[in-house]
């Protein structure tokens, strides 16, 4: 059955490039983000002759991958990238690692010199499979025409199956030019790669029993819930409401549970809320769904949630017991596991300890009472804008206008403020570079989102330093009339670097100030977009409203307080209960705030 009669090359067959496109169409590909070059010209020829697949011409290959990530994360589909050999492939590497760290399904097609030249240091040759091996979930070098179609189909399967990730297919030019047979996607399971999707029933039963016995439970969710699709978010909501247990989320998981819900404690981790981190520290039972005990979440490992019994649901067994030992591992798709817990919940006769849970909520409400995200905005005319206030107004106004809104970010303080002050109520609306922390991610990611959702409001909440890392994509945005909004929290500094220098390096602001920044209003103009600026608090709302109302690419340059820091903060290597609160709470930004910050902590990133 799997034997295909056309599985050998014959002269009358179409060129490899045509076969490639046919396979992409069978995989449901609608858009490719790419950049041409000598090695991939045959593919560009094939693209020229058809209309089914749209090609978006980026201005840098790194941006092609981030755009595909934005596309993938906002749609649940696989994002597709096409780049040439040598520098095209090496430029894509940052994007690939970003997608690997954040588990985003990508198929990246790279050109390669013809097979007979491989290994000869030919022009624009790079050992792409060698370079991308640790940068991808899997990669292929297609050396025989008869493998081409099969490899393409397999790459899509591998990219989305199990824990998703980027897959690279290196395509020598002779394979693209020569005749190749077509093989449809296999209907039989993959030979060796078959991730476990369904949870083990006995593990689920143990998990339910432990959850029901909890006196101080917490549900800690991550990007795995988003990756498991909207059904997983629906199941999570049902579980949290059924149990009445508090729920917190990692940066990558925001939106899976609605931010405005009283059972939600906000984000946890280094810049997470006081209540979320304390609940994690003091809980007696922790249910981790699709998160990976990242160091940004755990703080100092030996002080992480010392008294809790832990359940960990993850589709990737290597994430379980990697950093934090857990008592009940469940290897499964997050959505399926939550559904199984819901089903088992009703059949298990035990009751939860209501009085204990009520007492636990009283404790949590006391922590909440600290109001850790409080800040003061001076509302007098001409007053400087607080970055937190800018994000909060952006959120309020988009909500008031009831626009379907997607937010991307760059990396730095603005990213954390976006996570803290923009309330996400639905999955797949929030795209940020979590694992790799790639400055320059947000603009191309927004581009990919806007391509997938032409009528939605797509905003990149940016820093003035990060935005310059892929600013060339303004040109792509204007070419395709993609009305992405760039909302720069312009503090003139690499704010997050400046904050660490202030906190940990004696306020020696070494190279964290960018002199000679561009005039972002003129810059927008030169890229055929619209530039707006808010210099003081009284100008903010008008700028936000105008930005949203324009059906154009807009850069809104929001001049914010240069000295503002991002709180709460758990310095690297400190335990959760040594969180530093901001000046609003009377804590001065002194290193003594984190008592046990050691030299070892200082060495951490």
């Amino acid at each position, binding site marked *: 059955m799997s034997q295909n009669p056309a599985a050998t090359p014959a002269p009358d067959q179409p060129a490899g490039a045509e076969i490639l496109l046919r396979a992409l169409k069978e995989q449901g590909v609608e858009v490719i983000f790419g950049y041409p070059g000598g090695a991939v010209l045959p593919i560009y020829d094939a693209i020229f002759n058809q209309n089914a697949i749209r090609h978006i011409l980026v201005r840098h290959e790194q941006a092609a991958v981030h755009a595909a990530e934005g596309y993938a994360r906002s749609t649940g589909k696989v994002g597709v990238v096409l780049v040439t050999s040598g520098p095209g492939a090496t430029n894509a590497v940052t994007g690939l690692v970003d997608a690997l760290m954040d588990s985003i399904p990508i198929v990246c097609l790279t050109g390669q010199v013809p097979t007979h030249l491989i290994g000869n240091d030919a022009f624009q040759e790079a050992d792409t*499979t*060698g370079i991308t*091996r*640790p940068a991808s*979930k*899997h*990669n292929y*070098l297609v*050396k025989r025409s008869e493998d081409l179609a099969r490899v393409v189909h397999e790459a899509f399967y*591998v990219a989305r199956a*199990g*824990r998703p990730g980027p897959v690279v297919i290196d395509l020598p030019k002779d394979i693209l030019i020569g005749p190749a047979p077509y093989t449809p996607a296999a209907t039989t399971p993959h*030979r*060796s*790669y078959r*991730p476990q999707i369904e949870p083990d029933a006995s593990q689920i039963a143990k998990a339910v029993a432990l959850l029901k016995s909890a006196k101080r439970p917490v549900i800690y969710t991550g990007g795995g819930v988003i990756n498991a699709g909207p059904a997983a978010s629906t199941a999570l909501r049902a579980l949290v409401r059924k149990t009445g247990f508090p729920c917190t989320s990692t940066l990558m998981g925001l939106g899976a549970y609605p931010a405005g819900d009283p059972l939600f404690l906000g984000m946890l981790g280094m810049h997470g809320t006081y209540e979320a981190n304390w609940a994690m520290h003091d809980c007696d039972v922790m249910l981790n769904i699709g998160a990976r005990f990242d160091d940004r979440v755990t703080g100092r490992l030996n002080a992480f949630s010392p008294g809790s019994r832990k359940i960990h649901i993850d589709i*990737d*067994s*290597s994430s*379980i*017991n*990697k950093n934090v*030992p857990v008592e009940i591992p469940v290897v499964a798709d997050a959505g399926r596991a939550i559904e199984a817990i819901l089903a088992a919940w009703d059949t298990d006769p035990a009751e939860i300890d209501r009085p204990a849970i009520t007492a636990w909520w009283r404790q949590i409400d006391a922590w909440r009472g600290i109001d850790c995200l409080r800040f003061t905005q001076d509302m007098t005319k001409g007053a400087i804008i607080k970055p937190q206030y800018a994000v909060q107004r952006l959120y309020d106004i988009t909500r008031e206008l009831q626009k379907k809104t997607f937010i991307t970010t760059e990396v730095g303080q603005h990213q954390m403020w976006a996570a803290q002050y923009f309330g996400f109520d639905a999955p797949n609306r929030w795209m940020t570079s979590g694992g790799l922390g790639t400055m320059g991610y947000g603009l191309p990611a927004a581009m990919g989102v806007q391509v997938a959702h032409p009528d939605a409001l797509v905003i990149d909440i940016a820093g003035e330093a990060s935005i310059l890392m892929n600013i060339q994509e303004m040109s792509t945005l204007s070419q395709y009339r993609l009305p992405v909004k760039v909302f720069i929290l312009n503090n003139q500094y690499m704010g997050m670097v400046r904050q660490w220098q202030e906190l940990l390096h004696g306020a020696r602001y070494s190279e964290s100030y960018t002199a000679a920044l561009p005039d972002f209003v003129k810059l927008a103009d030169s890229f055929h977009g619209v530039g707006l600026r808010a210099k003081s608090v009284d100008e903010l709302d008008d700028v936000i409203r105008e930005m949203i109302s324009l059906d154009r690419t807009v850069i809104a340059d929001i001049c914010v307080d240069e000295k503002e820091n991002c709180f709460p903060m758990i310095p690297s290597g400190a335990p959760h209960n040594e969180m530093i609160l901001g000046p609003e709470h009377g804590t001065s930004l002194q290193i003594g705030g984190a008592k046990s910050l050691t030299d070892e902590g200082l060495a951490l990133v």
Partner: protein
Amino acid sequence: MPTTPHQRSAIISVLVENEAGILARVIGLFTGRGYNIDSLTVAPVDPAANHSRINIVTSGTDMVIEQIKSQLDRLVQVYRVADLSMQGPHVARELALIKMVCKGADRVEALRLAEAFRASVIDATLESFVFEMTGSTGKLDAFIDLMRGLGLAEVSRTGVAAIARGTTTI
């Protein structure tokens, strides 16, 4: 009182698709994540099914060895991963080729020891010979140590191949 986590040695066997890149991926996994490789062997074991087997001798805490297994298991071309040292009784063997350059009393003594260790002579000249020896890593180590004082010139070892005892298969 802080306890240092117990380190143990493990023999991990991996059944893989015999494809370009798989060995590089396995080795890259070990170097990239800082795991130890004490020895590594790889060879096709079922050409019809296109299967190869990789045997890795490594060491680490139980948690690290579990990690190694899970990390290997999620590679696309990996069929099965087994920790033979945990799974039950197993046999592990290594082959060594040992070149001796010596004469006179040393030569006689080396040959006498070889007989006791069941090493066979597979090449000989008047000044040299090559022993072939199969056994556990410890037995090979012991023999090679004895040879050091008797004119040991060169050693070539395969690394460990291992398999479970009884009816159990990978």
